[in-house]
């Protein structure tokens, strides 16, 4: 019979006279003289805010990993985290209020070529948002996001018949999209069918949960473009965003585009950007004025009611602008 034990080559205070328990394991893992646990957690947290760990291979900080770029910083953070009583909020605050975090992500060409991986943290890193956040972000920008916490899983729109391919012995599963506020909950609450998760989460590299993933891959595929362009979730978000642009964005096209940019990417558009979106809006306004049916179809995607007192064609044209803005690289990336 094999008894629970720590591998013999690792230091371990002997426990006499009884079988070791999970509590013994937990205490061994978090013993103050064990530097590894806090180091691994701190390294993973660092990745969330800086795009890459101080040691690049998250799942292995041992011999198959990478030597940390800043070993003393990693060690100091790990000790700090342990000594604070494993206070995660304090750790996050420490990281996001640092000078390193608050840097801009733009850098000169020379700097980028000298340090393409940003190992020396002379700038902030940029990376595409994680799958759930891509949707959360679109819902937030469009004013649809529910900030309700907890509760059972919810069911965002999913293509009809998607589960027909999910070959369980029990036969096809039924998927009923959530109504009301639950349709707009954070992606975190989306129902998970292991190995058959929601197709738009899948397209943005959410793991299928068939095995543990310490780190997600970050791909850039045509399926992502198809999701952002055509998934009703994003088109409903775009038309609701358009409603807000019309009601709150000001009177002129330039004011409205500027307002939309500030909502989506937290900056003002350049003259070049303004002109591209102004042209798009003008062309589509003309087209939707002569095809009200098409306009009506577009502004009724999803369950949210269209806003009152807004011209149908104008709303449809501004939906095109909103769709473009929600599809920008800048919108789905952390800069």
């Amino acid at each position, binding site marked *: 019979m094999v008894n629970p034990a720590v591998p013999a080559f690792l230091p371990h205070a002997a426990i006499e006279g009884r079988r070791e328990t999970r509590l013994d394991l937990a205490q061994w893992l978090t013993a103050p003289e064990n530097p590894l646990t806090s180091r691994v957690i701190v390294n993973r947290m660092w990745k969330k805010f800086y*795009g*890459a760990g101080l040691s*690049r*291979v998250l799942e*292995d900080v041992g*011999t*198959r990993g990478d030597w940390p770029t800043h070993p003393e910083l990693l060690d100091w953070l790990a000790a700090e985290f342990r000594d604070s009583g494993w206070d995660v909020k304090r750790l996050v605050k420490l990281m996001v209020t640092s000078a390193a975090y608050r840097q801009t*992500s*733009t850098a000169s*060409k020379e700097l980028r*070529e000298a340090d393409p*991986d940003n190992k020396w943290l002379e700038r902030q890193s*940029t990376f*595409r948002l994680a799958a759930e956040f891509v949707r959360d972000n679109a819902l937030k920008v469009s004013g649809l996001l529910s900030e309700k916490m907890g509760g059972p899983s919810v069911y965002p729109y999913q*293509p009809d*018949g998607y589960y027909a*391919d999910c070959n*369980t*012995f029990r036969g096809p599963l039924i998927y009923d999209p959530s109504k009301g506020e639950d349709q707009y909950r954070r992606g975190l609450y989306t129902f998970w069918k292991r*190995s*058959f998760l929601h*197709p*738009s989460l899948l397209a943005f*590299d959410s793991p*299928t949960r068939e*095995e543990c993933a310490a780190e997600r*891959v*970050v*791909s*850039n*595929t*045509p*399926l*992502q*473009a*198809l999701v952002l*362009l*055509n998934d009703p979730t994003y088109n409903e978000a775009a038309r609701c965003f358009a409603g807000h642009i019309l009601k709150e964005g000001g009177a002129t096209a330039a004011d409205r585009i500027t307002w939309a940019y500030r909502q989506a990417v937290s900056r003002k558009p*350049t003259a*070049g*950007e303004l002109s*591209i*979106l102004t042209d*798009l809006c003008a062309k*589509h306004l003309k*087209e939707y004025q002569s095809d009200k*049916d*098409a*306009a*009506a*179809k*577009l502004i*009724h*995607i999803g369950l949210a009611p269209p806003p009152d007192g807004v011209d149908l064609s104008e709303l449809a044209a501004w939906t*095109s602008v909103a*769709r473009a803005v929600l*599809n*920008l*690289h*800048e919108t789905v990336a952390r800069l």
Partner: protein
Amino acid sequence: MNFLNDYQLHETRRHFLGRAAAGVGGIALASLLNPKLMAAAEAQAKEPQWRGVVNPLDFRPRAKRVIYLFMSGGPSHLETFDNKPQLAKLDGQPMPESFTKGQPIAQLQGAALKCLAPQHPFGKYGKSGQEMTDVFPYMQQIADDMCIIRSMQTEQINHDPAQTYMNTGTSISGRPSMGSWVWYGLGCECDNLPGFVVLTSEGGGQAQPVSARQWHSGFLPSKFQGVKFRSKGEAVLYVNSPPGVSTEQQRDVLDAVQKLDGLFDETVDNPEIATRISQYEMAFKMQASVPDLIDLSDEPQYVLDMYGTKGADGSFASNCLLARRLAERGVRFIQLYHRGWDHHGGVKQGVATTAKLVDQATAALVQDLKQRGMLEDTLIIWGGEFGRTPMAQGDGRDHHIRGFSLWMAGGGVKPGITHGATDELGYAAAQDPVHVHDLHATVLYLLGIEHTKLTHRFQGRDFRLTDVAGNVVHSILA
């Protein structure tokens, strides 16, 4: 480490020069003299079309693409391609212990092991006299195109790990499948469809689930993941523009996105933005190419009749026709799963029923490719994750890994031959065994790839499809 970022960093201008110097040869030198050519080469690098890391190829390629007809569930070799008269003689008798002692077994553990005679009569077909049973009246007509391997061996005895083994060379999940390796290695010949496409159908027996893991890219960048097309309805999800948006209006929005991303890229110069712009282009092309792919109205009636399908109805037959259309469009690796070969009981009727669902279309695919001159550079693989026991499980057969059959056709394999043999009861590969690793090494060889050289560094070591094994089966090469 972030593999994709890592890979994309290799697509910066500096790296492109380095890669071009190693790979495309003259371009790098010429570009130093001719900035226009350099600009053209850079534009090439930004195309959505991936050109592959095996550049130049290690060998002269015999096949340009693969169509893998995966017979999911484990077809019985004893009712299909492996003729065992001795097993018929021992019908109902105890299986000699010398065969089975100490061997892994799936559901027959602890049961009395008795021989079950082959349930369908064998015949010799074609000029080559290839042996198969009468469940394949159509495949009999392509006997002279087939290279039958009767000595396959694998190491996993249950469906999911065995399929994972057959696709990735290991039962440990998280490794890239063969299709992903091939796409990564060779690139794709089309710019409007993915390089690795999967289709599934079912019928004829217990339909074991097939996991998306089977076409996963594992630790390779996820853009090399097989894309499962739905065989009915919308082939790719979200491929249609939203209601109320015309194709032209979709293009307008996409143009705006690409222009705005381009302007932004001028200020930040991030290679990921260039990739995103090109992926939007691919997405827009797929909105046209995917409906065109599944619209069979341009197929003459005699072709539909040849495959035995009325159209995209989710059947194996319609998937075979789609496979040909995907091959014509330049897709590198096409994998069709037919779920229905798990005949634990009623193997006689079961094999006959499932065979009827795949026989005609399989033969039609080979003949159709042949008449279009495509069989010579398309490798067809037909086989399951394992075979079935010579021992009875009631009136069926259990899973079996020590010896089973698989066949290939086209793309550089010798037509009209049978390779290897099992022992007299069809239990273990006795002559010229072909392990899954050997099959993988051979497939890569046919595509022009030395299997020991196509590697990817992951968790501190270089991984390959054949891991640390695999020998090319030279005697089946044309």
